[in-house]
C-alpha cells in the first residue's frame, strides 16, 4: 500500500516538474501577424518571393547588393516599401496604402536591410551618379541616350529592339528600377555596375550622371511607344 502511494507521488512529481518538457505542452500562442517585429521573419514572409532569399537571386532587383544599399537613402527605401512603386509590380505594403504592414514593421524592414546588407565602402572610393534623377522624370536627352546605349549596353544586350530594349519588357519596369540597376548593377544575374558597363564587364570610364539620365530617358521613349502603358493599369497589387 505504502509502495503504491510513494510511486504515485513520484509519478505526479515527475509530471509536475517535467510538464514544460512534455511533448504535448502547448507552444506559445501565435502573436498577431501585425505584431511581428523580427526582420528575418518579415522579409521572408513579405519580400523573399520577388527579391530572393537574402536579397539575391530573386526575379526582382537584388536588395542585398551592397552597392544598392549604399546608393539608396532611408527615405526612398521607406517610401517604396510603404507605398509601392506605382505603375510597376512592386506592391504597397503599408496599411495606410492598403497593405498589411504597420509603420513600425516597415521601419524594421529598412533598419534590418541596412544592418544585414550594407557594407563599408561598397563603391571602393568611387562616387556613383545619384540614386534619384537630377530633374524629376529623368529629363535626359533621348537621342544621346540611344547613342550611349549602343556603345555601352548593346554589346551585351542584343541591338535589334530585343531584350531590354523591347517595349513589352520596358512596360513592366519603372524608370527608377532601371536607374538602380544601371548604377548599382545586379551581381546576382551578371549585370555590371556603372563603372563596368562595357562588353565583358571591364572597367571603363564610368557612366556619368548625365549618361544614366540619357539612357533611362531613351528607354522610356521606347516604352511609351508601346500601345499599352502599365501606369494605366494601376500596377500595385
Amino acid at each position: 500500500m505504502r509502495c503504491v502511494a510513494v510511486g504515485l507521488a513520484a509519478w505526479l512529481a515527475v509530471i509536475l516538474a517535467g510538464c514544460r518538457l512534455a511533448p504535448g505542452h502547448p507552444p506559445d500562442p501565435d502573436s498577431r501577424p501585425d505584431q511581428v517585429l523580427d526582420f528575418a521573419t518579415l522579409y521572408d514572409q513579405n519580400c523573399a518571393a520577388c527579391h530572393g532569399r537574402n536579397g539575391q537571386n530573386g526575379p526582382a532587383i537584388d536588395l542585398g547588393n551592397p552597392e544598392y544599399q549604399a546608393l539608396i537613402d532611408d527615405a526612398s527605401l521607406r517610401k517604396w516599401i510603404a507605398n509601392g512603386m506605382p505603375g510597376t509590380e512592386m506592391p504597397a505594403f503599408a496599411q495606410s496604402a492598403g497593405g498589411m504592414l504597420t509603420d513600425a514593421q516597415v521601419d524594421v524592414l529598412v533598419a534590418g536591410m541596412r544592418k544585414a546588407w550594407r557594407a563599408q565602402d561598397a563603391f571602393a572610393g568611387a562616387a556613383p551618379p545619384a540614386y534619384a534623377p537630377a530633374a524629376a522624370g529623368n529629363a535626359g536627352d533621348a537621342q544621346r541616350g540611344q547613342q550611349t546605349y549602343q556603345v555601352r549596353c548593346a554589346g551585351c544586350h542584343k541591338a535589334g529592339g530585343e531584350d531590354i530594349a523591347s517595349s513589352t519588357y520596358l512596360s513592366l519596369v519603372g524608370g527608377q528600377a532601371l536607374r538602380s540597376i544601371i548604377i548599382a548593377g545586379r551581381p546576382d544575374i551578371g549585370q555590371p555596375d556603372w563603372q563596368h558597363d562595357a562588353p565583358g564587364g571591364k572597367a571603363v570610364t564610368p557612366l556619368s550622371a548625365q549618361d544614366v539620365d540619357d539612357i533611362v530617358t531613351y528607354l522610356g521613349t521606347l516604352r511609351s511607344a508601346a500601345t499599352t502603358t502599365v501606369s494605366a493599369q494601376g500596377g500595385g497589387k
Partner: protein
Amino acid sequence: MPGMKRAAGRVYAWLERRLQLAAPVKDAVLHPVPRNTASWWYVFGSAAFTLLFLQIFTGILLALVYVPSAGEAWNSLNVLNHQIPLGWFLRALHGWGSNFMVAIVLIHMAQVFLFGAYKFPRELTWILGVFLLLMTLGMAFSGQVLRFDQDAYWGLGIGASIVSRVPWIGGGLVHLLLGGPIIAGATLSRFFTLHVFVIPGAMLLSAFLHVWMVLKLGINEWPMPGRLVSRATYVDQYNQLTHEDGLPFVPGAFWKDLVFSGAILAAVAVCAFVFGPYGPGGQPDPSIIQTVPKPDFFFLWIYTVLSYLPPAMETPFILIAPIAGIAILLALPFYASEGEKSWHRRPVAVLVVTTVAVCWAVLTQLGTTTPWSPHMSAWSSDPIPVSRLHALTPLARAGAVVLQAKQCRNCHSIGGLGGERGPALDDVATRMTMDQLRFKVVTGGGNMPAYGKNLSPPEIEALVTFLETLHPANEPPAYDPAQQQAIEAAQPSGSAP
C-alpha cells in the same frame, strides 16, 4: 479501531433504513448474465460511460477558469495553457476524452448493431442510444465552439450555412443558433449553456436510463446463427440461458469492463500528454485574414462531402441525409425486432457497417489531405527555385515577377512551395503550348480564375514567356504540330536556325 467500525456500521444502517438501496444494488450486481457475454466484445458501453464521467469531471475543473465571454474566452484558455500548472494537461484530457468518447460510442453502436442487440425487448435501449450518440456529437461540436478561436468560427460558419438552407425558416433558425444574425458574444453564451447545462443534463439522464434498461433486461446473449428471436418465447429462453449457463455480473463480466475502461483512461492520458490540448488556434478576429482554419477531425468529412457535391445537390443532400439517417436508425428496432441476430446470417448488416466505415474513412482522409484553401502569403513569401530563374531573358524574369505579383503562387506551387488548389507549374510547358497557356491565363476555367481583365497585354506576354521556360532540361516544351508545320513551310528548307 473496532469502535470506528461499529460507528460506521451504525451510520450505514441509519442511511439504509431510509434509502433502502442495498437490495436493488445487490440485485444488479449479482444478477446472472449468460456466460458467453462475459466477452471482450461487450466492454465498449461501459467504457463510454466511464468517459462520460471523465468529461464531466475535467469539464467542471475547466469551468472554474474558463470565462464564457467573447472577449475573454480565448485569453482564459491561454491562461490555462500557460499559467496554471498542468492546466494544459487538463485541457488535453478533456479534448482527447471527447475524441475517444465519440470513437467508442460509434464502435459500441456498430457492435450492438452487428450483434443484433437492438432486437426485442431492447428496442428502447437502442433508441436512447441513438439519442446519446447525437448528444455526444452535439457536445463535441459545442465544445469546439467554446474554444472561440478561428477554427470555432469556421465550424460555426459551416453549421450556420447548413441550417440556413432549411426552406422558409432557415433564417430564423440561424438567428436562434447564433443568438443574432452574426457570430458574436450571444453565440458563445448560447453554446456555453448548451455545452454545460442542457446537453450534459439530458445526457446523464439518458445514460442512466440506458444502463438501467441494460440491467433490467439483461445483457444481450452471444448471438448464435439459427437461434431466432421471437416475441413470444425470447424472455423465457433468455432466463433459462442465464440460469443454466450464467455467471453473476460481478465479478464474472465486470472485471473486463474495469480493465478496458482503465486502459481507455490511460490511453486518453497518454494522448493528452503526447499530443497536448487542441488550440486555441488563432484569435477569433475576422480582421486577421492570413489564416487557414480547419474543422475538428470528426467533422472533416462533412466538409469533404460539401465540396465534392455538385452545387445543385447540396441543399437537398444536406437537409435530407441527416434526417433520413436518424429516421432509419430510430426505425431499425421496429422494422427488425425479431429474427436472426448473428452477423453470420445478416450479410446486409455487415455490408452496411463496412460501407459506412469505409466511406467515413475515405472522406476524412480526403478532408485531411486535400488542399482546400489557397496559401494566402505564397505570393510574397515563397521564392521560385533559383535554378528556374537561371539564364532567363529579362522579359521572362519580369514574367516571374508577374506570377508572384498576381498571386498565382497562392494556388500553384513551384519547387514544392506554394498553394495546391491548382496543378504544380514545375513542368507546365511540357503540357501546354504558348497559345494554350495564354488562353488558360486569360479565360481561366475549372477552378482557375480568368485573368483577362486583370492583366495588361505586356503582363500576359511576360507571364507566358516565363511559363514557357518551365520544363525539365531533358524534356522539350510542348508544341503545336500544325503550327510547327506552318512555320517550316514558310521557311525555305535550306536556312539553318
